[in-house]
């Protein structure tokens, strides 16, 4: 299982950092020690006590995932300027967070809600709508966990370790300390992960251009490569304007509907904590913009990655000594642990509150809830591991694409109720169904692509399917609510 690319200094640094965070993961159960961990608010939300800095590290650590660090430069390497839609996406997401999330937090905190589906059930009293929101959350997040595993797989391979054993070992360790420490584990590890990533990226964006002749040379090399390929470019083609803008907007609306981001929001200690984070979290976006540029630096460095996902590992191995490459790979692998842990905790919270408590055992105690959630988190992680081991990688990527479309369809049910009492549960459920099934159908018939081309008056408009489905979703929910409004009674 050891390949000829094996590099001892890189491997030693990697193992040392990995051991450090594993120790932290287990010790986290004693960090900010509560009177008991046997309560879902403690295991699943860290006691709803995280202040500005912990929330900044935690949400930054689980929103900007390891997969982002691999996939964004890969997309930029493959398609150029288009891959940068992640930048406007992760800027405009924060005004949305600032506007919506403090109010949502307040509702959740007052009502003792742990999940988005809890909030929806309390607002509308509809078990069906609650289940729809819970089911969508789990379906959208599972492939996201699998993607984190792909990110880890890429860096483990780059260290010269082949075979699946290292990946399985890393993931089992993660599963055990999440089981024992709950949300405190990723919250504590996020400090290490984020600091490592900041160091890696700042060193990379300072040193690499120096070695390659400056940023101007980097952009020139990329421009020349795209012209030679005849595809992509360092600015957008006019036909890409609408796809670029709609992908950015749709992704920004969907981003905080996911389980991992919402869990980070619900775990914070006040609405003002969230507002301050909407101001401070863009620091990570600056980092992401710089990470994206690694895709162009690959051209200037003249490396030839076997697949687009290898761009980042190969760039570090080519331009840096072994120990720093190992440091960078460890940063990415640890970067996968934080979101994977928070995602599995979010999914377990949903299962416990909106399936187990709702249908199996309504009389479950808080301690019983914590126990169910801990076991569920094991199942979720093992499930994601099996998907990666036994399904083609493309399967996880396709599901992740559809997952973004799906999670966006929960936006009206979760958010509209905060601002207006106009909408009715059956109408929201109908809108959700139209969005989910209509959107999936269009994506499926287009060959699982995120974009769909519409024709009006002979002009073609290419837009993000998730946003298209959301428009249909909202229309159905609005018309349905207007019709029911006169007959139905408000809950």
């Amino acid at each position, binding site marked *: 299982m050891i390949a000829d690319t094996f590099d001892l200094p890189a491997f030693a640094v990697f193992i040392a950092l990995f051991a450090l965070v594993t120790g932290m993961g287990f010790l986290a159960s004693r960090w900010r020690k509560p009177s008991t961990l046997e309560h879902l608010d403690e295991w699943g939300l860290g006691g709803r006590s995280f202040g500005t800095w912990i929330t900044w590290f935690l949400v930054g650590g689980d929103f900007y995932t390891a997969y982002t660090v691999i996939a964004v430069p890969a997309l930029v390497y493959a398609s150029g300027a288009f891959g940068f839609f992640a930048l*406007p996406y992760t*800027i405009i997401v924060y005004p949305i967070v600032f506007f919506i999330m403090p109010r949502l937090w307040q509702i959740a905190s007052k009502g003792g809600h742990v999940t988005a589906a809890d909030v929806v059930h309390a607002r509308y009293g509809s078990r069906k709508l609650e289940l729809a929101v819970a089911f969508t959350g789990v379906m959208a997040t599972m492939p996201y966990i699998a993607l984190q595993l792909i990110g880890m797989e890429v860096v483990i391979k780059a260290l010269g370790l082949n075979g699946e054993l290292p990946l399985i070992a890393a993931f089992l360790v993660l599963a055990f300390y999440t089981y024992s420490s709950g949300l405190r584990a990723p919250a504590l590890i996020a400090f290490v992960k984020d600091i490592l990533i900041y160091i890696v990226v700042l060193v990379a964006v300072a040193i690499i251009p120096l070695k390659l002749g400056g940023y101007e040379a980097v952009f020139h090399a990329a421009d020349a490569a795209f012209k030679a390929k005849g595809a992509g470019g360092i*600015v957008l083609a006019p036909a890409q304007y609408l796809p*670029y803008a709609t992908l950015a*907007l749709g992704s920004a609306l969907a981003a905080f509907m996911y389980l991992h981001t919402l869990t980070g929001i619900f775990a914070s200690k006040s609405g003002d904590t969230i507002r301050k984070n909407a101001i401070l979290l863009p620091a990570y976006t600056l980092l992401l913009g710089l990470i994206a540029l690694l895709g162009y630096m690959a051209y200037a460095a003249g490396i030839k990655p076997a697949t687009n996902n290898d761009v980042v590992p190969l760039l570090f191995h080519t331009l840096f000594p072994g120990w720093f490459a190992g440091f960078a790979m460890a940063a990415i692998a640890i970067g996968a642990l934080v979101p994977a842990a928070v995602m599995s905790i979010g999914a377990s919270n949903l299962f416990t509150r909106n399936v187990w408590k709702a249908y199996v055992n309504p009389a479950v105690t808080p301690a019983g809830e914590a126990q169910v959630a801990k076991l569920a988190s094991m199942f979720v992680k093992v499930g994601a591991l099996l998907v990666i081991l036994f399904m083609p990688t493309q399967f996880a990527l396709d599901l992740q694409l559809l997952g973004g479309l799906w999670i966006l369809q929960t936006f009206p049910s979760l958010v509209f109720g905060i601002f207006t009492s106009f909408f009715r549960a059956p109408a929201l459920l109908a809108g959700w169904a139209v969005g989910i099934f209509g959107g999936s159908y269009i994506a499926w018939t287009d060959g699982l692509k995120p974009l769909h081309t519409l024709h009006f008056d002979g002009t073609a408009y290419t837009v993000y399917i998730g946003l298209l489905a959301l428009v249909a979703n909202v229309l159905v929910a609005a018309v349905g609510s207007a019709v029911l409004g006169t007959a139905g009674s408000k809950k």
Partner: protein
Amino acid sequence: MRALLLLLPFVGLLWVPFFNVTEPSLFGFPFFYWYQLAWVPLSSLITWYVWIGVKKDDAP
């Protein structure tokens, strides 16, 4: 009403043809790139300004 300022980043970043050019460049970065990167601190600043307003409204 300050909250309406939160719409500015949407206008600045979703109106793509406005910034889809290479010149003027800055420190070797084509306009497309430094313009969007510049919106990161700008958007933070706008949000901070709105937050100050919210705090005033909350005060008794």
